């Protein structure tokens, strides 16, 4: 949980446009606006969750923050240093402090290297000398993530998916980073194993005082591990708030629709739940809809939504939303229940909203 309010990472107006080229001369004919103006802070010791549907720019954001790619525009400030356009050489010492965990525990580990070599690689790359030698240090980390230190000489294929993800986590921990960006760290794992890895991430955070940005599309997992959550749609943040607030009373129609689409394992609820059914798919980030990007699927859209882009504004303390007609507010014309209604926690998570007629 976050104690301080000191920003470890601060992102302002961040953009990444991937050029689309055509023909022999690679003439640029357009751009994929994968990330299109993100502003947010990550506070020391917290977990920020980043959610949104496929292609909304989550992974690109992670790769920008860790400077695996260079931003088209905007600023990334890590520990007070502007790293937006830092050279790879200058970034090198910072790489110790910032690590990324990847989604796929199968392809992100080199099959020809032993566990010892994989987890020890960061020491060698950074030229770090440890007191009792790299092997000892690596074995300690293996133990920390719940792997047997004796497995030092084994190869990735000898491990299960969950164990491989632990190896990946061990590797990122080697140099005691301050910030870890975890991109879908559990989505390739079976549910019983997912829970093991989620608990491990939480334990490590407490023990090592880590700060996380966790990217995931599973809204239940994100609620479980995040202190704050940012919801992305087509390259933009549409809502960002304290996790409990966001899930109890989402302000953005898209967040509300996302939450109401999650199937919950409760058979009694199956008939009772009021659902918001979005139509169609997410539009292409090459030609995103003008003004509010969500207007093509939003049941509340008005003329102003198609012409004026709603800014990300702080509507409630610590709760920012980009919408002209937010949900769950006194101004909300919809039939939403009062935000603070007591009673069954589950019902508060899903505001009634308006049900779209499904064709």
């Amino acid at each position, binding site marked *: 949980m976050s104690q301080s309010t000191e920003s470890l990472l601060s992102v302002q107006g961040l953009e990444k446009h991937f050029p689309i080229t055509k023909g022999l001369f690679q003439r640029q004919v357009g751009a994929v606006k994968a990330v299109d103006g993100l502003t947010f802070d990550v506070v020391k010791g917290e977990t920020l969750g980043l959610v949104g*549907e*496929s292609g909304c720019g989550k992974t690109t954001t992670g790769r920008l923050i860790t400077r695996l790619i260079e931003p088209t525009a905007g600023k990334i400030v890590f520990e007070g240093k502007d790293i937006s356009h830092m050279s790879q050489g200058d970034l090198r010492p910072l790489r110790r402090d910032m690590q990324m965990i990847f989604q796929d525990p199968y392809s992100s580990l080199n099959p020809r290297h032993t566990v010892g070599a994989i987890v020890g690689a960061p020491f060698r790359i950074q030229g770090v000398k440890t007191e009792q030698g790299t092997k000892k240090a690596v074995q300690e980390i293996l133990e920390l993530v719940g792997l047997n230190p004796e497995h030092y000489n084994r190869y990735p294929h000898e491990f*299960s*998916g*969950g*164990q491989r993800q632990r190896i990946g986590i061990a590797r990122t921990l080697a140099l005691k980073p301050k910030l870890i960006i975890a991109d879908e760290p559990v989505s390739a794992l*079976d*549910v*019983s*194993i*997912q*829970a*093991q890895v*989620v*608990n491990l991430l*939480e334990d490590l955070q407490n023990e090592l005082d880590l700060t996380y940005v966790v990217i995931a*599309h599973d*809204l*239940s*997992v994100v*609620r*479980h591990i995040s202190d704050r959550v940012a919801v992305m749609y087509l390259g933009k943040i549409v809502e960002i708030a304290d996790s*409990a607030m966001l*899930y109890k009373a989402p302000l953005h129609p898209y967040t509300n*629709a*996302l*939450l109401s*689409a*999650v*199937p*919950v*394992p*409760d*058979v009694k*609820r*199956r008939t009772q739940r009021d*659902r918001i*059914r*979005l*139509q*169609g*798919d*997410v539009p292409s980030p090459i030609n995103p809809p003008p003004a509010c990007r969500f207007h093509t699927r939003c049941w509340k859209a008005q003329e102003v939504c198609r012409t004026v882009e709603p800014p990300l504004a702080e509507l409630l303390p610590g709760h920012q939303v980009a919408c002209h007609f937010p949900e769950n507010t006194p101004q909300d014309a919809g039939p939403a229940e009062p935000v603070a209604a007591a009673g069954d*926690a*589950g019902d508060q*998570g899903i505001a009634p909203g308006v049900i779209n007629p*499904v*064709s």
Partner: protein
Amino acid sequence: MSFLELKDLRIHFPTDDGLVKSVDGLSFALERGKTLGIVGESGSGKSVTSLGILGLHKGGRAKISGEIWLDGEELVSATPEHVRTLRGKKMAMIFQDPLSAMHPYYTVGQQIVEAYRIHHPVGKAVARKHAIDLLGRVGIPQPDRRVDSYPHEFSGGMRQRAMIAMALSCDPELLIADEPTTALDVTVQAQILDLMRDLQQEFDSALIIITHDLGVVAELADDILVMYGGRCIEYGSASDIFERPEHPYTWGLLGSMPRLDRERTDRLMPIKGTPPSLINVPSGCAFHPRCAYEPRTDGKATTKVPDLLETEGGHLVRCHLSKDERRGIWENEIKPTLESA
């Protein structure tokens, strides 16, 4: 006899590493108009079961025994040719990945027309009209234009709809959907689940939905079968499984899942260890190396495979603990932790 009945179905694959017992004695029954959810972790035998029902393991190296009765006909002993004539017409499948099930060089319409004309001796124009109808029914906008699109021109959700249209083209009485929404975004998943629910009611078919997502089965299934290591370890109505589950593995699945419909719990309760290898399935109860209650079964769990026994009203459980012990543990030890704030 039920519309679909499996009796002690076994599907084993001889491999260089040993015999893979992917399905090892599976029995269940399903009526028309009902939905059965099959849940279980990766490698528990869900897909092998569904391919087995469709007869797609026939002629391969798989060793198949037991009985599969579909509308009064036994399929394990039937010839591959005969079962082929039933596919499409009598039973059809919706796969997780529509791209792998569709031909990339033919338009979506051509593929539906093809599937339809195998079983219906009609002209191309009539079949095309039928294809357009179906695409409209599954919610593809402008079906008369999209019928001439290629699969890659569709988004993931549209492809899944097109595959459902293809599977429905001959009004199958049994529809098997293997992870039909796993690759989709949650808002699109919700659309597809709605669609499947509506279509099933309209066609009164029997539906088997296979998934690892307990939320998805809770949305659709009347009955649920929980698989572990190629066997059914618990079977019951959706309320049995979600409100009074009696198998330690089912408890583990429920405890592993963060839930949006409850207050956030402090900590998830994972199942320790990993799913078993189907070559060296653990002796006795296959779940015993991971089970916290194994010590309470006096060593029986490591030596004897528990029988799948009825606990009450069609609710079946495969565990050596007594009914009273299981209910006591659920009420006093498990349920409170799942609901704790």
